[in-house]
């Protein structure tokens, strides 16, 4: 089947040339600009991960497209002199082609799974939600998380910063347990610092997506969900809710800032002092909070005869009724 190998060789060569060209163009021209940039360790890690996948994906796309293009160009009835196709066993199966195809796809798939797992572990969860007890965490995170629950927790440059993200319809607020547990609508982070985001929600499921930081994790009511990243650059970043949370989901966004470590310390200490009175009204810092019986966004039972669901202290209960 001399003719056969000619077709396949031509398809292979075209695919190879186009793939190498596309991969090189992608890697050097597009790759460095792929979102979400390089503001944090997870952002640059996941950008690299995305680019590796793309370099593998492009030849697959090109291979199939070249094949389809080649068939259309050569074997359409519109072209004169298309030979009559042959039926029979040779056209029905080809053991070599089948084994080769299955082998190649299997190797690629297993490599991808291994690569993804490696990146996930090395990246300490890659900025994704790791549940209440993270299996992969940066060094010092466990100690900082444990210490956060004690009122004497403190932060100094080099230590892991614990930030609690409290989501509710339709805003995010942030508690800094290492600074007395004050709560603020501002998200300010120190540069070159590993941050442990602890997410929880007071009502429905939200998702905290700090876009440039490459952190994304669901905020679930009465669950703690932890995600890690390490800041690498100064600048502003966007926070959006990426899990449908009701009426104003589309408007649930705000902005945060990565500041120098000294600026951050100044800001945090000032805010801690300024908020001391409010902080005293908040429930003690905890990973999760039981919502007030009235709910953060209106009562579940609207008939006015509400009793608290739980005997424990509820979030918002200490605050004066508005």
């Amino acid at each position: 089947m001399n003719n056969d190998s000619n077709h396949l060789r031509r398809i292979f060569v075209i695919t190879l040339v186009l793939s190498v060209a596309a991969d090189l163009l992608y890697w050097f021209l597009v790759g460095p600009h792929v979102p979400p940039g390089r503001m944090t360790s997870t952002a640059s890690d996941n950008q690299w991960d995305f680019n590796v996948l793309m370099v593998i994906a492009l030849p697959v796309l090109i291979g199939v497209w070249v094949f389809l293009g080649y068939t259309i160009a050569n074997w359409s009835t519109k072209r004169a002199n298309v030979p009559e196709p042959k039926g029979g066993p040779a056209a029905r199966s080809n053991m070599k082609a089948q084994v080769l195809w299955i082998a190649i796809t299997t190797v690629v798939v297993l490599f991808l799974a291994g690569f993804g797992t490696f990146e996930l572990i090395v990246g300490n969860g890659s900025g994704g939600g790791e549940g209440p007890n993270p299996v992969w965490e940066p060094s010092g995170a466990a100690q900082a998380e444990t210490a956060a629950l004690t009122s004497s927790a403190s932060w100094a440059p080099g230590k892991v910063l614990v930030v609690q993200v409290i989501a509710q319809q339709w805003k995010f607020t942030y508690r800094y347990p290492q600074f007395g547990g004050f709560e603020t609508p501002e998200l300010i982070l120190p540069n070159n610092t590993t941050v442990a985001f602890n997410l929880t929600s007071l009502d429905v499921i939200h998702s905290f997506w700090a876009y440039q930081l490459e952190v994304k994790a669901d905020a679930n009511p009465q669950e703690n969900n932890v995600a890690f990243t390490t800041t690498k650059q100064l600048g502003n970043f966007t926070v959006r809710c990426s899990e449908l949370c009701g009426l104003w989901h589309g408007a649930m966004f705000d902005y945060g800032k990565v500041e120098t470590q000294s600026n951050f310390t100044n800001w945090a200490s000032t805010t801690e002092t300024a908020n001391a009175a409010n902080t005293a009204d908040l429930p003690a810092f905890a990973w999760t909070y039981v919502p007030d019986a009235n709910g953060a966004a209106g009562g579940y039972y609207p008939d006015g005869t509400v009793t608290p669901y739980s005997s424990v202290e509820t979030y918002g209960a200490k605050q004066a009724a508005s």
Partner: protein
Amino acid sequence: MTISAERPTISVDTNASPPSSRQKVSWTQRPGWLSQHLGTAIIAAVLGYVFGHWLGNYITSSYPYIANSGQNAASNALALTFGVVGWLLGIGALNYPLAKLVGKEPVHEPSVEGWSKYFRYTLDHKVVGLQYVVGVLLFLFTGGLLAMAIRTELLSPTTHVFGPGTYIEIVSEHGTIMMMMATSIIIGPLGNYFVPLMIGSRRMAFPRIEAFSFWIFIAGYGVIFSALPYGGFPTGWTGYAPLQTQAGPGMISYLLGFAVIGLGMMAAGFNIAATIINYRAPGMTWSRVPIFVWAILSTAALLTLATPTLFAAGLFGVLDKTVQTAFYVTEHGGSSYLWENLFWFFGHPEVYIMALPGFGIVAEILPVFTRKPLFAYKIAAAGMVGVALLSFFVWQHHLFQSGINPDMRPLFMLTTELISIPTGFIFLVGMGTLYRAKIRFEVPMLFAMAVFFNFLIGGVTGVFLSDVPVNVTVHGGFFVLSHFHYTIMGGLLFAFMAGLYYWLPKMTGRMMNKKLGQWHFWTMFVFFNLTFFPMFIIGLLGQPRRVFTYAKNLTILNDFSSISAFLLGFSFLIFFANLMWSMYIKPEKAPANPWDSLGLEWQTANPIPEYNFERIPVIMTDPYHYSEVGAPAVADLGLAGSGAKASSSTSPSKSS
């Protein structure tokens, strides 16, 4: 071989008198208006709704009302339930089981002649198939209009056409309607119509269950849209709790709607699986079953096994909202994680319920238009079964960032990526079949080729989503939205169109207009890609799903996508114009076998008699012997005068 001697023949007595009124004829099949049909179903549904509402208010007066609505949840749920029961009673779906229940012998059910049979509960799978065609197009049309509304709102990040509440209603209805439609878009119309014809059967195994599945599917459409007067539901098609628990009365319509459609899906899957397993003609061994039937069988298995989870999950939600159980209420010991797990445990097999029939159609059509046998038939069948099996082990990839089972993420990453191996089989089969073929680019073939193009993009981006680190970037954004539109719309819907253009000549005896068909294809293909490809970039640039406002720098991309979407909507108008033109305005009679297919379904008489085959065919071989000299005929149809066609030197002797 003495098979043919024992084969029964259906004798059609053309002189038989029409059933007189003195003979007992079922209410569903009586001629005229004094019978059960769509009209009585609507009346009974309304009566059932009113009765249920009254009953609910009566037995649960002074019981918890839904927050901020003045509605009684129990009364809403009962109203919809009784509405559906009334609908089924009215159409006559319950006549037979009720008669059996009270010990009455079921009455004779001859098919009604004429067009009015399409408005009745009928036992002919070919009628049900055509009913489904109209049904799914109705779903598609309404879902598509809602999509146009979404893209209109997203034209500008700051100027709003709809309020946020209306917008969420539209998004949720669009998702739910489209997902429900997509579960049945191929298995309903084409599966019901062609599976018996392709396996050489005279009927479905459970024709009553089959008809039931269609009529309850339509009831589900009504139930879902009943959310609109109640203010819709704010959860999208995924219905996550506790937003679900918090939502207004429209949520009941969503939960019950899924339960109702779920009943139909289970019924449809059960019937089709039983038919394929038990009703194959003699000689139709598993290695001769057409590949489309393999796809439908794997889909039917998924429908039967995965849907019960959805059904139960939906009913738990209804209980939470009506009688204050706490399946999903965290404060009372339930869990919002429970819904996520149950929903996706159904939801991921569901995704393959929407992919496999498309693979089946493409693999079935390719040999016809390439004049080559299907390449690697066994690999194709194995691929479909493999996808179906693996699809039960991947559901948590929807929950990678949720905090559920974080240490299991590598496993779910592996299982998800493993699915691309059997999916890759389908590409091997397609490319092998195209290799050194002689391709006729008729309209169905154009759509089939487009499936390969679109599904490749959908599949490859799926690998990006399955990679946990990259998933952090793309989860919950427009990237994933684009990905599943590429697989479901680019794969399934294009395959459905291929199937419609391919098989409508057999179903209706009329050819679709080729010129309009080409216009439809090219506009749909081009504008589909122009609508959804930019969404990958929009997603990477940080736009979450289901938002009514977005970053200003994404305006140009969003506008580009919106305008393409309007033109994509226009391509469907071309399709409807073609449908009207070719079927009603200027019908052109279709030849008996317009595409020169070897498939058994094309060898039946035209129009197809009610019992499909005068004699049960004996299957000689698989239907893919294209371009093969001296190949055996696919089947011995046992017809007088057709012996020359059916027999050849290679076929087994059929003389008795």
